């Protein structure tokens, strides 16, 4: 084993039911460097980090992970922590109602005779807080602080465990510019103290700013590793490797005609957070959807896209909302999803397992659940028609399942998504809202989903697609709305759409109206 590497991953393959998340990945991290991991959503970055840190236990993957030249057999995160490896996930793992110092020492408190000396811990916590530059009373309850500060608590927590390898999964995704900059400086500080760091990031400028090495992952494979100290790397070069595929073949050809008829018109839509009724999550959004059009909503995480769509769909989100919704020029007020469905709206959630499907039910039942009124006479389900309907969509959408009696839990992500789409289609809406329709789905199935969406608009329906993958939005949409911080920042037509344009529009300062 080469001693200069703190971590080496060899021929790592990890399968999830129906999806190969990692495919023969090789990856090495030198001692004391900052190593950045880049790739599109679903490229396998987080999975790779989860394997390394023991979230996916030894035995659930093929291949080897070497830490300090020794093969690691982590059964849980606890084992990797013993080896001084720490991971900070995208979703912070702090206990919200405990104080800073309690969170810092949670899980590795060393009590004397079973008794915790809290005052000693408060004092001890101060040095870590100083190190990360968080000037807060250690007694503060973490849920009262912003995400940026919570992130610092996480790092302080990692430091208190004498960390040698720190893994950060998109640490700056929910931070503003100043907070991000501060965090990056901190990572550079830690490097000076000899802590090795792996950072996953979508923000290429940050990556280029601090990385010693960069590895690009795509579709579960390592594409290329760069040594930024040896040769200069450009953003364009990274993007090229991240995207890889020829853009023209990733999306099906479009042939449909868009009519000038506006089918959906939303004016000044404002939505408030379900738990903090004073916090506006969507602020005065207005947009229009034409018949036969695919509309994409782009923007970073937390831009308010899902919240906007779910609140439109029968107030499935939020405490209060205001504004007007017109379908075919007629104003509607939806109190429940049922109202929205009967007015011709359909919504396919981004959270397929949590909100979309009933995993313990079979394919047939999942498809028919929204349309039982249509499939029944006097409240008695016509099982014959139900089977016919389910079979129709199994064939037309190409759902790969042994039979429609198969539990959806056992289907792959792409096929599950087709089941949700079938349910939506069977209800017969004229406006489809699809939220991240291709998340966690392999490339082949993505293409099929795109074809389904194109067929829909070709048959005169309209589609609103929320997508975090900009190439997808550009490849599919006729028009793109860019959202950030709860506002619609602008509108881009298909002809002038580019990733740079979308990003710039999302990040520009809001103009005062």
């Amino acid at each position, binding site marked *: 084993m080469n001693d200069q590497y703190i971590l080496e991953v060899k021929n790592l393959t990890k399968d999830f039911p129906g999806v190969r998340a990692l495919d023969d990945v090789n990856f090495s991290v030198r001692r004391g460097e900052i190593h950045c991991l880049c790739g599109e959503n679903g490229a396998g970055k987080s999975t790779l980090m989860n394997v390394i840190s023991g979230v996916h236990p030894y035995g659930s993957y093929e291949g080897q992970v070497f830490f300090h030249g020794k093969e690691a057999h982590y059964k849980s995160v606890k084992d990797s922590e013993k080896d001084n490896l720490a991971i900070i996930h995208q979703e912070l793992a702090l206990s919200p109602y405990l104080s800073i110092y309690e969170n810092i020492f949670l899980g590795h408190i060393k009590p004397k005779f079973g008794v915790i000396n809290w005052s000693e811990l408060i004092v001890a916590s101060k040095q870590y807080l100083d190190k990360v530059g968080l000037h807060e009373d250690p007694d503060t309850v973490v849920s009262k602080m912003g995400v940026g500060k919570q992130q610092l608590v996480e790092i302080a927590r990692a430091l208190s465990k004498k960390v040698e390898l720190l893994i950060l999964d998109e640490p700056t995704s929910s931070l503003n510019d100043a907070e991000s900059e501060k965090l990056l400086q901190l990572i550079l500080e830690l490097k000076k103290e000899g802590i090795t760091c792996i950072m996953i990031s979508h923000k290429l400028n940050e990556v280029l700013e601090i990385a010693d090495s960069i590895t690009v992952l795509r579709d579960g494979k390592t594409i290329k590793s760069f040594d930024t100290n040896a040769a200069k790397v450009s953003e364009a070069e990274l993007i090229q490797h991240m995207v890889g595929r020829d853009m023209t073949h990733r999306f099906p050809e479009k042939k449909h005609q868009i009519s000038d008829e506006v089918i959906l018109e939303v004016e000044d839509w404002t939505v408030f957070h379900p738990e903090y009724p004073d916090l506006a999550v969507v602020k005065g959004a207005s947009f229009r959807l034409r018949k036969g059009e695919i509309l994409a909503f782009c923007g970073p995480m937390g831009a308010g896209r899902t919240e906007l769509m779910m609140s439109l*769909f029968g107030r*499935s989100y939020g405490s209060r909302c205001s504004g007007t919704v017109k379908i075919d020029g007629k104003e509607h007020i939806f109190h*429940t*999803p*049922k109202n*929205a*469905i*009967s007015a011709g709206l359909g*919504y396919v*959630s981004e959270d397929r397992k*949590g*909100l*979309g*499907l*009933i*995993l*313990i*039910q079979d394919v047939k*039942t999942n498809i*028919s*659940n*929204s349309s*039982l*009124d249509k499939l*029944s006479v006097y*409240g*008695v*389900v016509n*099982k*014959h028609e139900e*089977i*016919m309907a389910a*079979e129709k969509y199994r064939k037309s959408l190409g759902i790969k399942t*042994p*039979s*429609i*009696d*198969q*539990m959806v*839990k*056992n289907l792959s992500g792409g096929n599950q998504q087709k089941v949700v789409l079938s*349910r939506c289609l069977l*209800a017969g809406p004229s406006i489809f809202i699809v939220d991240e329709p291709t998340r966690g789905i392999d490339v082949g199935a993505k293409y099929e989903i795109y074809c389904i969406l194109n067929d829909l608009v070709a048959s005169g329906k309209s589609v609103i697609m929320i997508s975090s993958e900009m190439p997808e939005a550009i490849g599919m949409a006729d028009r793109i709305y860019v959202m950030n911080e709860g506002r619609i920042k602008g509108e881009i037509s298909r002809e002038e759409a580019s990733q740079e344009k979308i990003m710039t529009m999302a990040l520009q300062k809001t103009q005062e109206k």
Partner: protein
Amino acid sequence: MIDSREQSALRTFLDVAKANMRNYSMFLVLALIMIGFAVLTNGVNLHPRNFTYIFIQNSYILILAVGMVLVIIVGNIDLSVGSLTAFTGAMAAIFFNRMGLGFAATVALTLFVGLLVGVYQGYFIAFVKIPAFIVTLAGMMLFRGLTYIVTRVTPITPRTDIFKNTASGTLDVLYIMRMAPNNRGVMVEQAFHLLPLILGALIVVLMVVFGMRDRRNKIKNDFHVLPVGYFIAKQVFMAAILMYLSYKFALYRGLPNVFIILGITVVIFTFITNNTVFGRYIYAVGGNARSAKLSGINSERVIFFVHVIMGMLCGLSGIVFTGYMNSALPDAGKDFELEAIAACFIGGASTTGGVGTIIGAMMGGLVMGVINNGMSLMSIGANWQYVVKASVLLLAVWYDIYTRKKSGLG
């Protein structure tokens, strides 16, 4: 390509086998337990008289289990059913004795009281969104208290035998007399009831006819059907059980009245859960409430009505139990909620909701009933009966979790 097709055909076959194993394993377990006790009691437990009494003694729990399984499928629990059975049972006696109402009016009014209680509990659970555990825990105390109040802590015996006959009597018509050995082996003249046999045979014929019609229809439309071997085995199995049961009833006093009441209840609610939109909604809400909501299902209303049904069935159970004891007792229904809940879980309902069947709950209830009965016949006291029932409950749920994990369903 052919390979993978064969593989998937094999997998389908195994899936079907597994799914059906799960459905019928309860029948098998029940049969094994009965055979076990038959050995231990020299066949006394299979005696027609005892057989009839197993149903009579467990009917009120089984009626409660019908409602409880719906509550559990929708993802809730109802702790109040024991107290509510006592309360409605007491109200029935009061309507009948103190108010002098006729039996039919008494039954109608008692069911209505149960329904009202269901409305009250369902409202707080479904619309105010107080956890069912809390609402029904409060109900458990409330209705016990109300029972004490309305009965003035004294048993009320119905003024005629009609309650008693409803709960413990049999449908004593259409029989022939013949000579047969009695308990002591002496030849005496005994009745042989034709009605149970005729009804049993009729149900079997209907089952086979409908089953075949459905199957033909599916084949005609090129739908997926079970292999013909499964189909025949299933029909033969069900027919055998039904005819065995009919035969046992025929040899004693004919169809027990409560068996008819229970049978109708089970048929109605099995139909509701399997064939109606409302039934489907119950499973959908229990399987994933948030997804159900986004599918356009009014989950609050579904939960509400499930609790209303539970309340009404408590009313029915109350009438039956008052009849069984021939008295409305202030302390009636103690632990009934736990027995009903245990019946559901032994019968394969899932603690997380979305899974369960009426038939399963009936089987679960009978498993416990048969164990109680068998141990009583062996003169083993209630103390050990509790111990054994506890083990059965734990084993049944453990087996359920184990098979679910193995078949990738859990």
